[in-house]
């Protein structure tokens, strides 16, 4: 069961992936802090972090640019910082606009795209564009080569698959080859596709309203000069994701549903031939297994120590509830490890307080960066 620093040895990029609500943002920030503390120049790219976490990293005023977390902050929290921690909050819309500006042959075509309502819709709302822009920014930063390690906190997607699919789907849409092809009412399209296509088109017009189609046509016309540039770039982004120097970490929670999603996501990574590094389970109730089967009756033992039966009963009840969750977590994690055919499951306990400052991140890193001996000690409740 290797620690995160072993998993990330020699990697340029770490992508934390998983469904919403499992603590991905916190995990990404913790990994970035831990790797920076070990001497690397690290940048964490995050989307919409909790405000107090952002504040604690000094991210309040950040736009779409990386800025360095003040080294004095680490000292205040007693963290020895050998490297540098940088962070940025991704602005998907701004990244998309920048990308258009870079690919546009001239200012006029740039403005035509930026002002097109279909473009505004896509860049704001189309499923996948946020994910795609996260990849885009990652690619840009990697190409610049300013950092030893980039840690990406992926956007919360409804479906883990969306995230892997995003670059392809979006370029497919922007490319819109078959769509543009059919939108010409005469010429090759009509001859090849025949009557069926034009009837379909007219019915579609009737249903959605003509103006929408006109906007689409205008959008594709405005975009036509940039299609090749976008495609080439998307291909390079995809290559970067599959590079052996990239590492995907799957983040999940210990309940049945997040575990199933992690299994599913891992399968998708393997199918897409993307480099899987390990899985991190957050908010785990443990240790429990070491206390099973020692035959002790906690209520009696507590009553003897406390001399208060009512309190002893409530403490025992609470402990039994906790054990139920701990046993569930252990079962689910065992299932996860078997499905992934890995022993590399890193467990982070359910801490007593919400994590929203560097101290909290450092606490998490005791588990993420623990050696196997330390892990033993933690599991036995000795640490």
């Amino acid at each position, binding site marked *: 069961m290797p620690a995160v620093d072993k998993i990330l040895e020699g990697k340029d990029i770490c992508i934390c992936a998983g469904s919403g609500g499992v603590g991905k943002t916190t995990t990404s920030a913790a990994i970035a802090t831990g790797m920076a503390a070990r001497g690397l120049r690290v940048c964490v790219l995050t989307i919409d972090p909790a405000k107090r976490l952002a504040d604690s990293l000094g991210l309040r005023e950040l736009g779409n640019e990386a800025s360095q977390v003040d080294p004095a902050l680490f000292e205040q929290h007693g963290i020895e910082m050998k490297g540098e921690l940088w962070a940025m909050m991704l602005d998907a819309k701004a990244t998309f606009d920048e990308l258009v500006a870079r690919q546009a042959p001239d200012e006029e075509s740039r403005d035509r795209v930026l002002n097109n309502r279909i473009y505004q819709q896509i860049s704001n709302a189309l499923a996948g564009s946020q994910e795609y822009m996260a990849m885009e920014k990652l690619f840009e930063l990697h190409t610049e080569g300013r950092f030893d390690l980039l840690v990406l906190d992926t956007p919360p*997607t409804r479906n883990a698959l969306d995230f892997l699919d995003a670059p392809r789907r979006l370029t497919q849409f922007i490319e819109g080859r078959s769509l543009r092809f059919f939108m010409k009412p005469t010429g090759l399209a009509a001859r090849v596709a025949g009557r069926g296509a034009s009837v379909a088109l007219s019915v579609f017009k009737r249903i959605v309203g003509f103006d929408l189609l006109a906007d689409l046509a205008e959008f594709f016309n405005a975009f036509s000069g940039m299609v090749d540039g976008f495609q080439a770039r998307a291909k390079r982004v995809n290559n970067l994701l599959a590079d052996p120097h990239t590492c995907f970490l799957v983040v999940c929670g210990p309940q049945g549903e997040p575990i199933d999603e992690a299994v599913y996501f891992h399968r998708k990574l393997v199918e897409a031939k993307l480099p899987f590094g390990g899985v991190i389970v957050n908010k785990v109730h443990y240790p429990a297994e070491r206390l099973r089967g020692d035959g002790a009756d906690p209520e009696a*033992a507590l009553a003897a120590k406390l001399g208060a039966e009512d309190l002893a009963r409530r403490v025992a009840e609470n402990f039994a509830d906790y054990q139920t969750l701990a046993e569930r977590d252990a079962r689910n994690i065992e299932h996860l490890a078997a499905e992934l055919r890995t022993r590399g499951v890193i467990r982070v306990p359910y801490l007593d307080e919400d994590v929203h400052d560097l101290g909290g991140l450092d606490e998490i890193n005791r588990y993420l960066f623990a050696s196997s001996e330390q892990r033993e000690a933690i599991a036995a409740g000795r640490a």
Partner: protein
Amino acid sequence: MTTRFSCRPSKLLGITPIPDLLDKRLVFVTGKGGVGKTTVAVALGMRAAEAGKRTIVCEVSSQENASRIFDHTEVGFHEVEMAENLWSISIDPDESMREYVLLQLKVRAMRDMLFRSRIFSYLAAATPGLKELVTIGKIWELAQLDRRVKKGRKYDLVIVDAPATGHGIGFLQTPRTFAAIARVGPIHSQAQQLDRLITDHEHTGTAIVALPEEMPVNESAALERELRSEVGVAVDRIYLNGLYPERFTKEEIERLAALADGENGIVRAAARAATSEHDRARSQRAQLARLRRRVEAPVKTLPFLFEPELGVEAARTLARRLG
């Protein structure tokens, strides 16, 4: 865009009281991923069904979380009875699109041609927001007293387990956005109709599900604000899910402190679990107070359930606690 229906004036003036959440015809249950939205949606459905209302819970993410709670096989795009008076459907956008076209086009040959046409499915897939729009269209259809679908069952209440999107409001905002893009045509008028449905506070309610933690509290407050300003929806209720019980007093925890630092073994582990529960319960109450300060809608709490998996029994327990 101004809010057409606001909670406040009617409360203050005491005229036309807003019906309780379950007395509406349509309720959207929304919130970020991982907060227990589906369980709360199903619990609301159970509560309404027990009150004698014919209720359907709609899922829109094709994840079949609701049927999973009932240990039922996947329901798909079918209205399936889960319990007495309680039905479930998983709304698939492609099926909704198909149904929409079927209802729009009466000429069979034309429909068949359309479904076979690749260009049609391509356009449908490429048009931003169309999937969400037809999904909401299906929800509208389910909520009609006079169903469009042949032999469609009449429901007293439709509950929607709304998708957890990055921005939260995206889904409910779709009709409004769409009406603005498609300026004319049937979709334009239908998008307007759907927007009217979503913002009809007399018949349509919205509940946010949150967790008593820093980030979900911030996000729920932002979600309520955005729903009001961007979509014109006033949130009726916020359910703070997973609240730990306050099992111990401060004095009791102090008494347990010595045991928590004591020798290894079951007594120490139990004392530590108690301390940990106490800390959690306390920080959760601080978050509850923060949430109450930051939102306008009434906040109701739902207990954390110490159960391995949240199935039908858990949903029943929550149903009893919903107010």
